[in-house]
């Protein structure tokens, strides 16, 4: 797990780097924002921890630059300033989390773990319900047989498997957030998935009752 750590205070930088390396991270330490940007150009990281107040280029600017270049790596901001407005500015700039100084190493480590867990969960984890597995790496849906799903079918299936009760409006917002789709689209894609679940010999089905949409397992009453 590769981690980029940017902090201009030497002692703090060394201390944190040592602890994180001990925890098993492959740490690249830099002392200002420009070095951080250079490092990001050269390699890709799994986690980035940035101090806000740094010479050359500050943490927020590094973060904004990352997001502008569609680098979605989770970022945790360290801030000596603990004003609400500063925290809001950092989070809105694209940070996933922040930690105010002085902080405990234990908490920093836990927050990093939490970010990593979330990002892995989204991209790499296969989901399972009943005898059905939704494979994240190849968009396939399998039980007794398997079929491949399209991008939107995959997103819809994933949303269905991750939540309890939903309605079409919610699914529309989750799966088609930026495109002009309507309730009809959601209904059609649910039909696709229903048929595909049946074809693979699934023991779960997509149920819709009184406006609520959910996954029903055959074992349920």
């Amino acid at each position, binding site marked *: 797990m590769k981690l980029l750590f940017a902090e201009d205070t030497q002692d703090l930088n060394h201390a944190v780097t040592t602890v994180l390396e001990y925890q098993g991270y492959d740490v690249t330490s830099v002392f200002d924002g420009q070095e951080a940007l250079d490092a990001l150009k050269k390699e890709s990281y799994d986690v980035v921890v940035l101090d806000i107040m740094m010479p050359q280029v500050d943490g927020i600017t590094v973060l904004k630059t990352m997001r502008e270049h569609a680098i979605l790596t989770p970022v945790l901001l360290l801030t000596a300033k603990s004003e609400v407005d500063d925290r809001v500015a950092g989070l809105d700039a694209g940070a996933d989390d922040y930690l105010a100084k002085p902080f405990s190493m234990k908490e920093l480590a836990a927050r990093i773990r939490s970010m990593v867990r979330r990002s892995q969960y989204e991209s790499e984890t296969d989901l399972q319900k009943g005898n059905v597995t939704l494979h994240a790496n190849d968009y396939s849906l399998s039980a007794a047989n398997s079929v*491949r799903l399209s991008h939107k079918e995959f997103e819809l299936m994933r949303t269905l498997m991750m939540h309890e009760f939903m309605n079409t409006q919610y699914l529309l917002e989750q799966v088609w957030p930026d495109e002009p789709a309507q309730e009809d689209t959601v209904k059609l894609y649910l*039909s696709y998935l229903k048929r595909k679940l049946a*074809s693979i*010999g699934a023991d779960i089905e997509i149920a819709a009752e009184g406006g609520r949409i959910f996954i029903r397992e055959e074992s349920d009453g």
Partner: protein
Amino acid sequence: MQRFMERIDACRHQMKERLGMDPVEHCLCRIKSEESMREKCRRKGLPETCDSALKEIHDAIGIRVVCAFLDDVYTIRDNLAQWQDAKIVTEKDYIKNVKPNGYRSYHMILQADNGYYVEIQLRTISMDTWAALEHHLKYKKQYKGNQELIVSELKRCADELASTDLSMQTLRDLIFEENEAGS
């Protein structure tokens, strides 16, 4: 075999009238070559006569019915099941039970009332396309490249084609449902 073909044609006609669509894309039939039949008779220790061949060997006559839509495969199957002149000896659904390599089709062996056996394969156009390529690979002399890669990629394509077949069927149902509701 003639009669079987006629039966299938009758079924197609019926469905065409009802739905305005011919359920069958195309229908091929073949009879095994004489040489191949003799060889098989010999292997099974049967007399090499026309009669024994057709009455003992199940795949002397083969018919392949290719449909555009998935449900039509089952419609034809049901139609043949109801036919008085022939009975189903065995049937295997490789659509509900896909073969590990990705192969999908519906196989039936029917016996006509004169004792002759006929092997029938029912499948969709995409299943047919896939099977043709896979067959070529299997029976061609030693493919020199990365065998594993080809096999896994063929499986992927089979699963993608199956997914498209299912989507198309869903769309057809939607279109016909809308039409019925509107009329």
